[in-house]
């Protein structure tokens, strides 16, 4: 049985279909990334899992508790940590007060350990906090009672790159300790470094559910080389070549075809310089979103699906 199971989860706000028949399972001990652009419905799914929203149809379970069953969900919440996207701390009290309060309700065995990694100024009132400090305080409260499952909505937004890296390392360690982590993100490059598996949401529909490696494989390779004009035209016409960009004496494209075919073709040309690398995850993502500029979703077209 999965730690999180969604079965045909649908949330209809009337004007927007925020979640449309979403089904997937998150297994024990995995880091699951929930990807999608802003407004795709990620937060709706997360808030439904926590019992804040009532699904229009379909259902979901968290640690075996049905989201319709408040009693069961309350028991499960003792073993869940939650980091919301918007942290509504009481602005007037200090960070230490917030943590004391959270510890009194759900426990805080790991508080000191976490304060060594994430360093919000706990003696200062929350109203003086930067968004990064608030985020760190949020991460501490989500993990301090050592829950089995931690659900995080955009956990790294507001963190500086150094803290983001520490967060990534922390998350990998937590996973090795057997925790299950579920987080949403629209920043793709960061997901790739920590996630085992991703679900991709677009306009409320789950459009992809892949191992991160498969996702990267499907994204192909980015090939960049300096060569002759004639070679450029021939390469661009090759099967599996897309997203071609030409410049002065070179060409760059994404290659998703057979490697041998590409290498044989290259061998017939005069290649002066070549660089084959992984494409940025944004490009991989585009593959799921369809053609160029697909980052912007067109709500009207899809909401009636």
């Amino acid at each position: 049985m999965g730690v999180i199971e969604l079965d045909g989860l649908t949330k209809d706000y009337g004007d927007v279909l925020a979640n449309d028949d979403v089904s997937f399972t998150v297994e024990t001990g995995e880091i699951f990334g929930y990807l999608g652009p802003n407004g795709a419905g990620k937060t709706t799914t997360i808030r439904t899992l926590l019992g804040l929203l009532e699904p229009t149809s379909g259902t979901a379970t968290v640690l075996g508790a049905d989201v319709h069953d408040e009693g069961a969900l309350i028991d499960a919440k003792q073993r869940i940590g939650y980091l919301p996207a918007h942290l509504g701390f009481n602005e007037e009290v200090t960070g230490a007060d917030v943590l004391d309060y959270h510890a009194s309700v759900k426990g805080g065995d790991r508080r000191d350990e976490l304060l060594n990694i994430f360093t919000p100024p706990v003696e200062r009132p929350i109203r003086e906090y930067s968004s990064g400090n608030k985020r760190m305080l949020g991460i501490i409260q989500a993990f301090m009672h050592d829950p089995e499952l931690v659900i995080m909505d955009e956990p790294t937004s507001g963190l500086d790159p150094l803290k983001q890296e520490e967060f990534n390392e922390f998350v990998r360690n937590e996973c090795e300790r057997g925790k299950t982590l579920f987080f949403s993100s629209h920043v793709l490059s960061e997901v790739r470094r920590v996630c085992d598996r991703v679900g991709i949401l677009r306009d409320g529909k789950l459009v992809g559910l892949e191992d991160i490696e498969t996702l990267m494989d499907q994204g192909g390779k980015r090939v960049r080389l300096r060569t002759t004009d004639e070679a450029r035209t021939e390469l661009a016409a090759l099967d599996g070549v897309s997203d071609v960009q030409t410049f002065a004496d070179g060409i760059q494209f994404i290659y998703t075809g057979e490697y041998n075919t590409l290498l044989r073709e290259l061998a017939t040309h005069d290649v002066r310089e070549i660089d084959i690398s992984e494409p940025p995850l944004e490009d991989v993502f585009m593959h799921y979103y369809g053609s160029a500029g697909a980052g912007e979703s067109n709500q009207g077209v899809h909401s009636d699906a």
Partner: protein
Amino acid sequence: MILTIGVSLYVAFIVWYFSLVDASAYAQIAESVPPAMREAFGIQTIGTIEGWLGGQIYTFVWLVGLGIYFAYSAAGKIASDIENDRMDLLLSFPVSRSQLLLEKFASMVLPLVLLNVVVGGVTYGLVLAIGETIDPMHLVLAHLLSIPYLLVCAAIGTVLSVLVNRAAVAERAAIGLMFVLWLVESAVGAAEEFSWIQYISPTHYYSPTPVLIDGTYEVMDSGILLAGFLGLLIVSQVLFQRRDI
């Protein structure tokens, strides 16, 4: 706390003011006031300390001022937590929604009781200080009977608070509603065919001035207030239970 001090200072001013002025002058004022206003402001026997306090403090401050204040502050409780995303974190705790709502409401009961105890004591002390007398039992009763009334006001605010997403909207609605209920109750008292309207207003069931003057009150009125309070609390529970956050 600040409210308690503020109200106490107001009581001090009113009591001191009473000591300055000739009592018979007030009786004339009371007679010159139209009956509808006498009804609204509880100005009946303004010439005695009991009547004076009943009109100036208990009708103005308790019935109108504190009624509106507790409805207003209750209205902000849940709505502001939802508006500031605080509710997300609170409901991630292993607590039920009904428990959360009860705790929020309970947090208002202590200041409500404290205010009555402190201001009641201050008032008694001040009355003695200016050389007047007042029956302490009547004073205690006036405060005690105000508690069910103020609970109803707070419960009205709570219902508004769980209905609305924005604190400012809930708070304004609470102030407006309480004020209208009070006005309606005072205004229709004189008009026979609309007199039934006064029964929907909680202000109809708490009359501090007669309690202060001769200790008369209706047990039934307090019973109705308590029943209304419980009913409103149940309504807010049901609404809060079912809503999306």
